[in-house]
């Protein structure tokens, strides 16, 4: 419970100082990416296109896009995804699909909404997937994220750096560590894009904290800098078990 409270304060603090997400710029496109403005036909997206709150980004099969917002928040949208944002509330709607979200520390938090769950982050790099009728996933590459049930908003789970929680059967699984290095090596939202993640140094520190000596050099920041790493991410003890409901069948 302390963990929830801490995370809640942390995330709330992030939102209180947040500037609105006014617009985003398309910085990378892979295959079929379309922009759907209100009351307008879908049109193919192009690099440097401006995306505002009344515009949805829709990707096709094997397609991806990268957006950078006015506060340097980065969003990478995966295949078969429908993605919109509400600038004033710093919230994003994920109708379906996957998104990688990197919110710079100090820039304010962000929230991803879906029909079943919401995910809130601040100063964090996460990957989040939601598709109707299948489990939803929240993976933190660095920093802390929080996922809550829409139907039972008080039922939440805090996902720390290097952890994944899955919403399945109406319940959250207990967050567990996943191999961040393998994700960095294999995820198309990372390896399938040209640009380096701004938070790469922080992610690499999480990998080191997982005992990842000999990790892939390709995921080291180009300048090799680790000076700004928040060591607490990996040195803090695991949080107490959150009040996660056991999924059916267990």
């Amino acid at each position: 419970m302390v963990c929830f409270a801490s995370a809640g304060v942390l995330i709330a603090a992030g939102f209180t100082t947040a500037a609105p997400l006014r617009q985003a710029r398309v910085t990378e496109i892979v295959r079929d990416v379309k922009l759907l403005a209100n009351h307008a036909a879908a049109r193919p997206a192009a690099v440097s296109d401006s995306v505002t709150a009344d515009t949805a980004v829709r990707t096709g099969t094997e397609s991806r896009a990268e957006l950078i917002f006015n506060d340097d928040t980065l969003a990478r949208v995966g295949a078969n995804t429908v993605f919109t944002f509400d600038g004033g509330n710093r919230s994003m709607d994920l109708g379906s699909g996957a998104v990688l979200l990197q919110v710079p520390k100090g820039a304010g938090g962000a929230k991803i909404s879906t029909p079943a769950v919401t995910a809130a982050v601040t100063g964090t790099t996460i990957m989040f997937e939601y598709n109707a009728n299948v489990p939803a996933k929240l993976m933190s590459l660095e920093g802390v994220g929080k996922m809550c049930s829409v139907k039972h908003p008080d039922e939440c789970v805090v996902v720390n750096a290097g952890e994944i929680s899955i919403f399945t059967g109406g319940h959250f699984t207990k967050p567990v560590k996943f191999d961040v290095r393998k994700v960095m090596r294999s995820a198309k939202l990372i390896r399938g894009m040209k640009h380096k993640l701004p938070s790469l140094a922080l992610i690499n520190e999480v990998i080191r904290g997982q005992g990842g000596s000999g990790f892939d050099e390709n995921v080291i920041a180009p300048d090799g800098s680790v000076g700004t790493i928040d060591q607490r991410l990996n040195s803090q003890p695991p949080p107490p078990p959150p009040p996660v409901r056991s999924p059916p069948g267990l």
Partner: protein
Amino acid sequence: MNPPTVRFHRAALFTVLFGGIALLSTSATTYAQADRAQTAQDQATYASDTYSSDSGFTSNGHAVSTPNDADLGEQEIMGGGGERYQPFSLSVIAPIYYTSNAALTRFDPKGDVFFAPAATFSYSPRFSSQLYGDFAVQQQFFYYDRFGDLNFGSFDTRAGLIYLVPQLRNLAIRLAYDYNRLTVSDSLNEELFADQSIILNLNLPFRFSDGQELSLGGGARISVFGDPDLPRRDEFDIYLAYSINATRAVSFNAVGRVVARAYVLSDRIDVSESLSVAASYRVTRMISASVYSTVAGNQSSDKKFDYSVANLGGGLSLLIRF
């Protein structure tokens, strides 16, 4: 409600639904017992459980497969922690029911109370993120209070595969071989009927919101061998199931089903409809208490096999996964 528990409860419920005409003749008795026991098997094929999805993680330490896995990368869980997929389960149930039509007769139905304890061991190994094995052994007995002549036992064993399609809402496709053996009362040596069949089942779940699920499914059960031959039949069914976890401990589910049965050695064709509802309270992690209610009817091309029945029951179940 835990999926295997659901299967058992439904099995026990439906066991009394589709039997019938047991007092008419020896062969009719076999028909009835085959109906009751085989219908119990039918319930086991309600693949509303999606295996890997329930625990979130697979037996080889990965997150369950989802449509955007390529975007998220290989999600290997470290250190063997977490709620990993548990392929083995042992289940024991002790339900008791009142039925309005114990023998499932068309005329002058007689009510009775029966007890139907069962034990099942199942193994569902994960071969890949989408392919699972499906193996189970079950023994169940049926003891009637007033009509002891109806008592029988049913042994079932099943071996098959289940294939999940995340791109199609986690559609579950089950293909299995099934062996069913009916015995007199609780005597395991006095065989009444043995049947071997192939089961194909499709189950498409829709999860609307937190804890709610609607499943649409159907399939076929084709008898390939029977001894004696007379009760053999092929079955084709469709069903709609709904479940909701109202609280952490309380769940409800309802199943409506229509099944057509074509008897292999005759022109007889039956069509049965049923609607069952159940409420379950999870007493502990492994123990649940449930109540059930079911109404059903059967229309046969041979009118003497028509019947209707209503059942009400409850019981405890124990489920251990490992």
